[in-house]
């Protein structure tokens, strides 16, 4: 029988017991040196027992599982002949506001149907005569994890709030990117006409560097229905976040991934709907 031992916790407890013994001895014999040593050991014992090592899986395992899923999605969309641009849907288009879906029209020029039509489509995801298909995007589960890390639903956050909180969460808490910059397209554009600036306001640009999803993003560039459309898992997470935060359908406008797969620059468009 194999006994699983938590090494860091065992070391922490051992240090704590040793420290307490030293403190007790120091109190009995009234000597300061063992007391100082004991105090240090007690502190470090508690700290080491508290700081647990995280659970990790090898990156190669992550890559091989996630790239296979992307391949399957690409093959399915190609087989079913869905050629349109994927649109990430906000909750008002769905029966369950917590579900995460993207709509892909059959035709390349296909448009987004009304929320009622999509809700009907959600009840039977692949009807024979449908003009589009609903899929769970590759970043769906990652978006749920993001909500957990942020500590609030993406539905209750605004775009500005997200712009400030996302880089910190993705870098520090989730550790899936090492650099992240999100800005609205007109942030750094000066001297343009007011009309142009207004149209740019719906375009969000995200630039990130990732080692965790390097191979997955690199693989995504070879899949025609995924690249610049559904997006790699990281681009997909951001599209979900923008759709939820703005309450408007979001599309990936363009995606640029460096040759080594490390750096990715994605542009998103928030679609202004006609008054529904």
């Amino acid at each position, binding site marked *: 029988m194999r006994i699983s031992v938590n090494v860091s916790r065992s070391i922490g407890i051992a240090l704590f017991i040793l420290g307490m013994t030293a403190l007790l001895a120091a109190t009995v014999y009234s000597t300061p040196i063992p007391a100082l040593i004991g105090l240090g050991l007690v*502190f470090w014992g508690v700290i080491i027992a508290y700081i647990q*090592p*995280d659970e990790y899986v090898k990156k190669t395992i992550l890559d091989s599982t996630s790239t296979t899923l992307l391949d399957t999605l690409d093959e399915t969309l190609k087989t079913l002949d869905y050629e349109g641009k994927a649109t990430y849907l906000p909750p008002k288009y769905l029966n369950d506001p917590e579900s995460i879906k993207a709509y892909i029209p059959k035709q390349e020029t296909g448009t987004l149907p009304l929320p009622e039509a999509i809700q009907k489509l959600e009840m039977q995801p692949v009807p024979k005569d449908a003009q589009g298909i609903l899929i769970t995007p590759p970043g769906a589960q990652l978006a749920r994890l993001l909500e957990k890390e942020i500590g609030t639903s993406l539905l209750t956050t605004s775009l500005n709030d997200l712009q400030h909180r996302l880089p910190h969460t993705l870098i520090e808490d989730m*550790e899936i990117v090492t650099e992240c910059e999100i800005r609205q397209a007109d942030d750094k554009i000066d001297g343009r006409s007011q009309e142009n600036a207004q149209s740019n306001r719906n375009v969000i640009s995200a630039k990130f560097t990732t080692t965790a999803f390097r191979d997955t993003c690199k693989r995504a560039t070879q899949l025609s229905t995924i690249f610049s459309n559904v997006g790699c898992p990281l681009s997909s997470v951001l599209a979900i976040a923008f759709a939820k935060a703005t309450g408007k359908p979001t599309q990936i406008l363009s995606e640029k991934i460096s040759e080594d797969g490390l750096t990715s620059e994605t542009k998103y468009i928030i679609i202004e709907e006609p008054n529904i």
Partner: protein
Amino acid sequence: MTPAFPLGLWDVSLVLAVTAIVLLVTSEILSPYYGAANLRINKKRLKNAAMTTSILFLTTVAIQIAAIIYGIS
């Protein structure tokens, strides 16, 4: 002779200060902002521990300052 704890608040403060510095520096060095994303340690907990130790140290300092101001020995 009754057993007495041989350390004062100043000693505890010193131990806390050293621990806090070590933890704060470690958590900052291991921050993913500097690309150290491959160390198998819960960095959130490390940061929490560093912050807690720092707050404990500052509390001991505040107690000592209060003791000086109000003349409590």
